[in-house]
């Protein structure tokens, strides 16, 4: 609903009791999904329901595991991240077989648990272990799931079509709310019973949207609280097409029984392409075989990229960044902590092989242009940053090169800091030439 349509349903008294200065301001917030209709005390139930129904996420949530490493997926509202953002990154769960020696299962689980990739201020990690019952032996399956459980509170995914094996495993780890895979046309009654009993999230698997909706409806009716859909793809193309179909139906609120997060097992699909496709197109939980490090690194980076809020870009930590081993006389380039600005500039500086310092100040992730226009980047910030980073102790000179778009601030920065200011180019691509000429 558009803001003015919402506004028409409000009392238009500008009474401020909702906490917003005007009814229109509240309507705009409601339309953007940033507030609930219950904040207005003067709406009747029907209007509240109407407004609430239009603002609740069309993809329901599901939480896997308990404790610090549990994760939630779903609650998505758009087809494309540029329309708003993707909220919950997919959980990547690494497969293990219960036929492997238990020691190997344990070692794999520990590796998954301990893998951390540190990138631009975030720790990227894997999300859990997908234990596949290959043995056909419920006791073996239960024992293997115990071993995984001994490696800390990693969420678990239990994969088998046999409800008996699930029952045995859930007996030892049901309280940790593993995700269980999968309820099908054949076994859904027993699977739903288990999921209900332990409160676990449940994957339902079928080849068509009608069957998926039917299974989801039955399992919900049977008391299952969280559901994921497995559209049973045979190729990467299948998954992308089916996942897109499901998301589209969910977002349009066309069929409520398809409004669940999706499940993808990449094992038989050609791993890297399937993993990338799952990250890009709507998977909530992705089961993957153990992957070589380069694949993991790329996949985790892609996931970080795609699940960055386009409206709140990744920020670089403010501070002094030496580039190309600068000496104490190397130039100092002021920049902002908008990651794209930083990386672009860094790229050109590294390519130009020019030793210098990147002096990154905290503009809350705004680009230079926006930060200057919005008053976020000003002489006070520069002064404080020079003091807090000890820039004066890092270099022997007192000259600061500022971005071209910050030129209007040059005089004020000189005044406030006592440093000489040179205005650099607007475009990062010209920085190397600028620095070479300047020497």
């Amino acid at each position: 609903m558009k803001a003015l349509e919402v506004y028409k349903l409000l009392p238009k008294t500008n009474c401020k009791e909702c906490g917003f200065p005007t009814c229109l301001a509240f309507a705009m917030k409601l339309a953007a999904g940033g507030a609930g209709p219950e904040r207005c005390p003067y709406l009747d139930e029907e209007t509240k329901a109407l407004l609430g129904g239009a603002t609740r996420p069309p993809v329901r949530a599901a939480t896997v595991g308990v404790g610090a490493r549990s994760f939630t997926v779903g609650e998505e509202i758009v087809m494309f991240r540029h329309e708003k953002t993707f909220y919950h990154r997919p959980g990547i769960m690494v497969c293990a077989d219960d036929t492997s020696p238990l020691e190997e299962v344990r070692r794999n689980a520990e590796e998954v648990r301990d893998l951390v990739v540190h990138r631009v201020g975030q720790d990227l990690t894997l999300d859990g272990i997908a234990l596949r019952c290959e043995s056909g032996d419920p006791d073996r399956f239960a024992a293997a799931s115990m071993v995984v459980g001994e490696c800390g509170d990693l969420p678990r995914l239990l994969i088998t079509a046999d409800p008996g094996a699930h029952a045995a495993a859930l007996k030892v780890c049901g309280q940790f709310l593993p995700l269980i895979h999968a309820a099908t046309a054949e076994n859904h009654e027993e699977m739903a019973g288990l999921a209900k009993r332990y409160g676990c999230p449940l994957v339902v698997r079928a080849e068509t949207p009608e069957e998926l909706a039917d299974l989801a409806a039955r399992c919900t009716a049977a008391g299952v609280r969280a559901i994921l859909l497995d559209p049973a793809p045979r190729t990467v193309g299948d998954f992308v097409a089916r996942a897109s179909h499901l998301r589209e139906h969910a977002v349009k609120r066309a069929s409520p029984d398809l409004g669940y997060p999706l499940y993808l097992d990449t094992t038989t699909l050609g791993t890297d392409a399937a993993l990338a496709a799952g990250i890009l197109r709507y998977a909530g939980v992705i089961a993957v075989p153990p992957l070589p490090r380069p694949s993991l690194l790329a996949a985790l980076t892609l996931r970080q990229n795609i699940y960055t809020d386009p409206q709140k870009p990744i920020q670089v930590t403010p501070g002094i960044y030496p580039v190309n081993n600068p000496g104490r006389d190397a130039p100092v380039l002021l920049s902002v902590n908008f990651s794209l600005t930083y990386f672009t500039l860094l790229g050109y500086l590294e390519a130009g092989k020019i030793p210098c310092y990147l002096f990154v100040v905290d503009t809350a992730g705004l680009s230079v242009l926006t930060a200057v226009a919005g008053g976020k980047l000003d002489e006070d910030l520069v002064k404080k940053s020079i003091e807090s980073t000890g820039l004066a102790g890092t270099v022997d000179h007192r000259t600061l090169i500022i971005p071209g778009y910050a030129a209007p601030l040059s005089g004020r920065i000189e005044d406030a800091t006592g440093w000489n200011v040179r205005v650099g180019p607007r475009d990062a691509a010209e920085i190397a030439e600028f620095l070479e000429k300047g020497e």
Partner: protein
Amino acid sequence: MTERITEVAVGATRTEGGTRTRSYRVGGASALPGMGDAGARPLIALEICDDPALWPVVVLEEVGDLAGDLSGWAKAAEERWGADLVRLVLTSTRRRGFDDPASSGKAVGEVLAATGLPLIVEGSIDPALDTGVFRRCGEAGEGERLLLGTAEAERYRSVAAAALAYGHAVLAQTPIDINLAKQLNILLRETGVPHDRIVIDPYTGALGYGFEYSYSVMERVRTAALAGDADLAMPVISAAQDSLTVREVREAPEGERVETAVQWEFYAAFSAAVAGAGIVCVRHPGTVGMLREAIADLWGGEGWR
């Protein structure tokens, strides 16, 4: 989504007035992959260059002596690695004091002679050189329907003039912004370059280095076109050119470097294909086969429509 992406002809066979052994019509999709008729699968271009000094080390190690042998490199792209297109980057023009546009034309001729694949040519990036370089490149490829690049908002007239004079299409590059992409297309149109002679290069940041912006710009460009914006309805080309010089690749352990390089290119290029790119470009030969297989798989899907 009811509109269709404009088809751009790349490469000309003998019957089409050129000497290529195959030619393509890029575009034609009426939906993003997985969301309807995504048209022909995206083409894979392998990038080569005429001056390897500015080329990623990890590629030079892979191609060995071919790096100094433009003909051999181009031939291998076609025969050994199975690329659909060769993208010749005239890195020599980026050297300070470059003043030999004739050599650019010669390089284009050499590659055209060595391979039957259609050719993308990436020329100078200096307004002072553009006119000469693009004229020579355009001339050398006359009739071959090259994809000639790169036009930018501040320097598009010489590329456009060369493309118009010698029958090529233009690569229109803008820095990761749908609006700037559209603006450049309008500028080119008003200079006389028809829509079916433009390919949009929205600039692709490397994975982890701005790729999130590029990915969404590609999606936005595609969805805007499919929703009816004719000034964005040209095919998209994606080249995450910095993939092989990012820290993750440079600092990868010796035994993992090649694999990391390939994955870094692969994830970005495959994602670009999912976002609707019509041509994806890579530099490491190892990426080509992996990408070809994955794209075939992506195009081999069965939806529910």
